[in-house]
């Protein structure tokens, strides 16, 4: 009886870890080796499976660094099946959902509301949670302008009164008023006929008005630059430069590490060479910020980083695996006292990496082990093909013959969800594999990876999730937590 139970526990722990890996990496978008449809199907199955079997653990995953897509899916799943939960479960779930919604970018939440409406989920709990979320929005006028359709739909769905009569008119009867007292709302009204007014609006709203007024792209970008969010600036800096709008300037020093790595990889090689000092400094600064108190505390670290052709990602997730690897490279540089990076292509200049060639992971791992590291990190999609399976053999022999005491801690981080296996692809059974989304989460992922060795039971995992849940619901003083990624998106 006892053995049966513990076997069941092992399966449960396995299932949940698999789901965590999926929830960190999968976005339902096309990957290098699978189509968007396969990814979505696989992910949807995983969600309903975990929700049906391990409801509490499913909710607790919201406390981990899962990506926004999966956070929204989990919230939707929990709200849609509210009737199946006990009163205690509902209380915990409610707090987890509220906290997660507060961290999600608003457009994600509005999209979630649309999905809830489509799925005809409108129970009392859903309405209460959305009411609290809407009430906590810092600037209803901005939401009304920037997410007009979303906010309208949210109000309709939850049967809530709009915050203020003016806002209600703005959303549902804009023609009724000849002027709005709130400046932003009035700018929106005037932007329909007055070109100068559109530069008072958020960028994404102004873009439509600019097209309506036939304003050239260069002029528009130049003038709207102060109204852009941080990420819009980063995204539009290069295209702005092409259109002669020099005012679009992203402050690279303030960007989060993974975004910055993505930006660098989007630049042509010539630009990267020309701006080498600036880019390297920005990446190092971001890495130092992400490393925080752990800086320099990891001892001697070696990393095998995958820049093979498959790191191209797909049209939807362009260069995503390579971005993750590059960000990890700079973060590990900050974390380690002594650091050896080994790219699979054999290149040594990290700033100029380019996805090309096969994946000779096995031989690169041997190179890395040759430096006698305390920690070895492998960032790869796990398709070891030159020759196939060598990495697994090298890691096995290393563990069984050369390092049976486990002096070197080896962790494999995989940024790609494998739709067929419902998990990230593993290199070897002896080496823990964890999903990777943003390099900033790397320290916590390495902590999580120890569960993935397959020997840890459910009690430890539950204890870990409980601890993470507590920390998530009652965040300690902001000085000790790394600043969460999101996002002063609504600051403008």
């Amino acid at each position, binding site marked *: 009886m006892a053995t049966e139970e513990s076997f069941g526990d092992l399966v449960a722990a396995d299932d949940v870890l698999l789901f965590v890996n999926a929830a960190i990496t999968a976005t339902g978008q096309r990957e*290098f*080796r699978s189509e968007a449809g396969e990814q979505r199907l696989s992910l949807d199955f995983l969600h309903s499976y975990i929700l049906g079997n391990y409801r509490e653990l499913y909710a607790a995953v919201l406390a981990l660094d899962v990506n926004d897509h999966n956070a929204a899916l989990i919230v939707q799943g929990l709200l849609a099946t509210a009737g199946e939960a006990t009163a205690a479960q509902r209380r915990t779930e409610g707090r987890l959902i509220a906290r997660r919604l507060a961290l999600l970018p608003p457009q994600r939440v509005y999209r979630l509301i649309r999905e809830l409406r489509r799925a005809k989920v409108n129970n009392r709990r859903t309405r209460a949670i959305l009411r609290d979320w809407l009430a906590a929005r810092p600037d209803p006028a901005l939401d009304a302008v920037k997410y007009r359709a979303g906010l309208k739909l949210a109000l309709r769905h939850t049967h809530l009164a709009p915050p203020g009569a003016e806002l209600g008119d703005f959303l549902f009867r804009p023609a009724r008023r000849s002027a709005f007292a709130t400046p932003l709302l009035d700018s929106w009204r005037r932007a329909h006929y007055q070109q100068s007014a559109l530069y008072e609006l958020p960028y994404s709203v102004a873009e439509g008005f600019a097209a309506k007024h036939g304003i050239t792209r260069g002029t528009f970008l130049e003038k709207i630059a102060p109204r852009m969010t941080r990420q819009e600036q980063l995204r539009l800096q290069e295209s702005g430069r092409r259109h002669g709008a020099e005012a679009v300037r992203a402050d690279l020093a303030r960007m989060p590490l993974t975004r910055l790595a993505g930006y660098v990889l989007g630049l042509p090689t010539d630009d990267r060479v020309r701006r080498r000092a600036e880019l390297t400094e920005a990446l190092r600064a971001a890495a130092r910020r992400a490393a925080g108190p752990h800086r320099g505390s990891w001892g001697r670290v070696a990393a095998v980083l995958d820049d*093979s*052709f*498959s790191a191209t990602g797909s049209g939807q997730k362009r260069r995503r695996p390579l971005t993750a690897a590059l960000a990890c490279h700079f973060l590990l540089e900050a974390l380690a006292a002594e650091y050896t990076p080994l790219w699979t*292509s054999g290149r040594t200049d990290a700033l100029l990496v380019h996805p*090309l*060639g*096969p*994946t000779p992971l*096995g*031989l690169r791992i*041997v190179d890395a*082990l*040759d430096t006698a590291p305390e920690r070895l990190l492998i960032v790869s999609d796990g398709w070891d*093909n*030159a*020759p*196939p*399976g*060598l990495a*697994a*053999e*090298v890691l*096995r*022999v*290393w563990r*069984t*013959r*050369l390092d049976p005491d486990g002096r070197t801690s080896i962790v494999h981080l995989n940024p790609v969800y494998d739709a067929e296996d419902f998990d990230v692809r593993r290199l070897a059974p002896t080496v823990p594999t964890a999903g990777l989304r943003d390099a900033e989460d790397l320290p916590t992922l390495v902590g999580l990876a120890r569960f993935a060795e397959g020997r840890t039971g459910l009690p430890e995992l539950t204890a870990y999730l409980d601890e993470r849940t507590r920390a998530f619901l009652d965040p300690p003083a902001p000085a000790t937590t790394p600043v969460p990624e999101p996002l002063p998106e609504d600051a403008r």
Partner: protein
Amino acid sequence: MTPRTTGTLDLTGLRTGPAQLWGAVRLVPLLREEPVAGLRLHRRALGEEHGVVQVDRRTTYHSYLPHAFVADRTGDGTPVATYGTHLTDDAAAGPPPAGMPLRLHHRLAKREGRGRLRFLPQHLALEGYLSLHFGGPSVVWEEWSQRAVRQGLSPRAEEAWTGAQVRGLADALRLFEIHPGQCGLLLYLGDTLAAAFAVPHPEDYRALHPTLVQDLYGEQVHHYATLMPPLPDFRARIAGPGIRSVAGLRAAARRQEEEWAAFHDSTMAAGLLGPAYAFRTVRRLGPFTLSRFLPGFRRREENHIGEIITDEAGRTAYLKTFRLSEKQVRRGHLLDQLAAHDWHLARTAAALGTGEAQLGLRLESAGFGALLRQDVLDHYRRQARGPGAR
């Protein structure tokens, strides 16, 4: 007649790399340490319209023609001139594909200015096969029909599939991670060799890799791709005992690569590299020779036809093969035997160890019935039915 020689394929200078697997498609890269100097290939996009190649005034040759290649031989052979960038893209200079639905190629291969040779790769090979006995019977024995004597083996249609129709091939080629220095590819479907492809320079290979999916593949390739389940990988294995250091581990890992290459060359590619081929020279250009080759038409074995450019030492600079289906092999075998005996039915039948009537019926079932005179064929049929049946 063009000179004919027999010999085997010589892949000296091409090293076998680790295979990559996708479903039932196994792709084995061929790597060069040094590119072949003095020869570069260019792709000439012809667009998707129907290409027509005129072999002589009487016959036109219809087929799908996605690509035509231009073999470029740099005059002085110095390395700078050879992989200089001025040769990279010739296709852009050509006329854009016009709205004209048909395009006439004067010959399948012809000289185009000095130092350049244009040729249509798969067509050369297919034509080589089809026109093996294109002229029909060389001695007009009385059994052959007037049509056979006058028109040869027309219509000369053979079945082939473009790569896009082969299931999983497009994905496998798209996902393949090209090695540095890679100059060729062996394509296996269901672990039988479907096609071999080699070029002189890695950059040529990089340019041509996406075009492989538009090439022609034999009937067997299509069947294997459709019917075979996903294959297992040949995964590396390192024996643990005896490894005491990282250096030992590295040596064992290196050995894995060599063992795979040896296994592949001796076992998997044996059907291509082992047997002798009959080479027919098409064109000589400086140190390079363009020839087509035909297999021995051994039944129930791999038979590849193809075209090859060799340098003066006989090493392969360019190679492209097409695997024949079993049916095509049987037909080739019959024609080969007939030609070897001057198209004399009785002598051929004796050599094959059967009766004349059986041979006649075999010719008919192979699709060559129209070559025999109708009354002769009827006579054979009566004979086959037995002496009592009148």
